[in-house]
């Protein structure tokens, strides 16, 4: 198939010149079955239009920077194969629910604040000295939180969550999943420091369990599960007779 073509419609927006975003069409060669949407964007940038802006780096689905809306669904573009869309045109837009900086580049500041707000580090009442070696932790104990530690901060879940779209104050899926990752870690003792953030009005209670966050998550993190479990655990602390209400 030497002459196969694919049409890419990409969002263009330059705050210096544009009032609002528009779509621009590019027709490019679809030269290899294993081409992904990101390859198409790279082809455009290298050979057709050097001014198209977007983020990417690893091209192997792990750095989390290449998330965009592909035909309306949040995707890692390095992991979205053109063959699954061809011959229809592929519409590539910036992730929903975020302020747009330029073309396909969204503003991440909000998440960076939220990430910090849940104190994503090991909190201990008493540090053990380095000299006494590692904390013992079994593989079963790791399995408790492993799933929630796989988050690559790609923001697809935020783009999929209508609750976040309506209310940016909502702590949201990935941040809650990471909070739960630390709360479930046998080495951590910071739950009571995180509760005021995760169980706040704009915390887990905002989530109405749409569940789309978990559907789009490329790493199987299941943030919806993290949120609902947090609701249940927190509630139990208060309603069970011997719950810890701290």
């Amino acid at each position, binding site marked *: 198939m030497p002459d196969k073509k694919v049409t890419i419609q990409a969002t263009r927006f330059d*705050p210096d010149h544009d009032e609002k975003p528009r779509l621009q069409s590019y027709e490019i060669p679809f030269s290899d079955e294993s081409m992904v949407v990101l390859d198409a964007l790279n082809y455009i940038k290298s050979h057709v239009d050097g001014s198209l802006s977007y983020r990417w780096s690893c091209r192997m689905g792990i750095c989390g920077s290449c998330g965009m809306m592909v035909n309306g669904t949040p995707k890692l573009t390095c992991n979205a194969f053109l063959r699954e869309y061809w011959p229809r045109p592929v519409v590539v837009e910036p992730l*929903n629910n975020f*302020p*747009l900086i330029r073309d396909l580049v969204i503003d991440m500041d909000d998440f960076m*604040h939220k990430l910090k707000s849940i104190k994503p580090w090991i909190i201990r009442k008493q540090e053990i000295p380095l000299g006494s070696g590692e904390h013992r932790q079994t593989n079963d104990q790791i399995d408790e939180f492993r799933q929630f530690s796989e988050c690559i901060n790609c923001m697809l879940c935020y783009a999929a969550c209508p609750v976040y779209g309506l209310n940016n104050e909502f702590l949201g899926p990935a941040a809650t999943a990471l909070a739960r990752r630390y709360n479930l870690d046998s080495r951590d003792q910071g739950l009571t420091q995180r509760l005021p953030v995760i169980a706040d009005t704009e915390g887990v209670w905002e989530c109405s369990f749409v569940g789309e966050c978990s559907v789009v998550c490329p790493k199987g993190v299941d943030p919806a599960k993290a949120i609902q*479990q947090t609701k249940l655990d927190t509630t139990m602390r208060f309603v069970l007779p011997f719950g810890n209400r701290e």
Partner: protein
Amino acid sequence: MTSEAHAAGREYRWRMPTSWWTRSRNYFFYVVREFTALPLALWLLWLLVEIKRAGDGPARYSPHGSAAFVVFSVVVLLFALYHSFTFLTLAGTIIHLRVLDRPVPPSLIVLSQFGLWAVASGVIAFVLIWFGR
């Protein structure tokens, strides 16, 4: 200059259209799931009326039975089943149980939920019919 202090004025602010839930199947089914509350509530109100009518005396007692009511109930039943199905499935992802220090797999939890539902439904149906003879 620090990422904490960027002027955000020149950004394009994304707005969620109120019709967002018509844009994807999953969103639509989510809204349907939440909406099940309304028909179920109406039907329970009817049950309350049915109870109240027991005070009407033997001569004037007339339980609901019109065709319209049956149709309404069929619709409510569909919503009720959808609610049960989604609620009991989702509960499986929430409940985080350990037995003998091993996590119980979610599929087992879901299965036991559905089992409980089946048993409860059987018992209730039996009672409703047995005492109605």
